[in-house]
């Protein structure tokens, strides 16, 4: 990391920001009679065709239901949750409110979050509701704090395509090679 990037990160006052990345951490009370249905719905979603893939700024998203706390043994005094919680975390690019508005617009978001107490479908109310359940991170970290999802995907596309050109380069004329490279590096 260069000095410029270091100072950019060091000057960010929001502990959830790290460069262009934002780490959202939420704990949202689940309606007691909906916990089973919510858990089943989450586990039925295909991770390789996730509805949260429609959030173009999201690098990763995690949702799970917790029903109680894990007792560690003595000398801890046991304690329990009063209600189940949905843990919703996301690592994404840009601003929180924009992300939450995009999240609110997903049909599956309504399906999932309507199992939680106080859910509001209207985008502005949804943003405020989610913010009220946000927990600030102590520390949030990534090896590529200034790369967006599109930066990552474009780099991976070019890298893979270039390897293909390298494999075939010996059998191509110079002009074909140049054309292939131009096509790969399209604007």
């Amino acid at each position, binding site marked *: 990391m260069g000095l410029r990037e270091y100072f950019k*990160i*060091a000057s*960010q006052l929001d*502990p959830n920001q790290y460069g262009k*990345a934002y780490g959202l*951490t939420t*704990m*949202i*009370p689940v309606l007691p009679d909906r916990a089973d249905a919510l*858990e089943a719905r*989450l*586990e*039925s*979603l*295909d*991770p*390789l065709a*996730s509805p949260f*893939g429609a959030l173009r700024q999201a*690098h*990763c*998203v*995690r*949702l*799970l*239901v*917790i029903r109680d*706390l894990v007792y*560690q*043994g003595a000398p*801890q*005094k046991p304690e329990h*949750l*009063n209600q189940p919680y949905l843990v919703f975390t996301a*690592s994404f690019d840009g601003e929180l409110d924009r992300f939450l508005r995009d999240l609110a617009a997903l049909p599956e978001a309504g399906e999932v979050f309507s199992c939680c107490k106080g859910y509001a479908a209207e985008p502005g109310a949804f943003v405020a509701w989610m913010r009220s*359940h946000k*927990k*600030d*991170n*102590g*520390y*949030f*970290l*990534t*090896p*590529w704090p200034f*790369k967006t999802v599109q930066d*990552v995907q*474009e*780099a*991976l596309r*070019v*890298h893979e395509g270039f390897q293909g050109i*390298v494999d075939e*380069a010996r059998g191509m004329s*110079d002009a074909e*090679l*140049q054309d292939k*490279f131009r096509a790969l*590096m399209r604007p």
Partner: protein
Amino acid sequence: MSAVLDSERPRGRNTSGRARCLTMLTPIRPFWTPVVWLIMRSARYHTYFRDHSLQFKFIYYVRWAVFREFSAGEKKRYSYLFFESNFDIPWRQYIDAFAYVIPKDIRVIWGRGFSFPGPPPAEPLKRWIAMNSLEGGHYHSAYPQASVKMTLAAFEAHDRLLRLKREAAGLSPEQFRKAFDAAVADLQRHL
């Protein structure tokens, strides 16, 4: 046959292609909470934790959060440390790496938790993590096909190829071939 294949597709839980997610929520002893909080909040101003954590090229995103109030009206006796790591190797290898290479860091962050088995060795720590790992649910990664090493290599290659693109603007096909070969030589480690 297709029904069988469909049933074998990974669904839910904490993996998405190469990416996987470890989530834990563990209590902190009361006197240690301010220390953990201070360590976390000061971490962005120095490179110690960053360099130690990211020396392992398998972490995409990682976070720690400390809180005592789960929701309005539900405040616990203890503060809890929420930990989430997104990474690309089997979690047992992940723990081995941390337990043997940076055991002091782990002891500082979790060491004042209850029943925490300070590493090394790694096996008791793995049992403790298995006990506290929050399973189930759903996990999404925007680039499940790519490991962290693949992604870092792709950034290096992309930067070099953008340079080649700029250089190649006015080159003849023959001159381009030479520039291309030079780029391939520069990128040997990343291909």
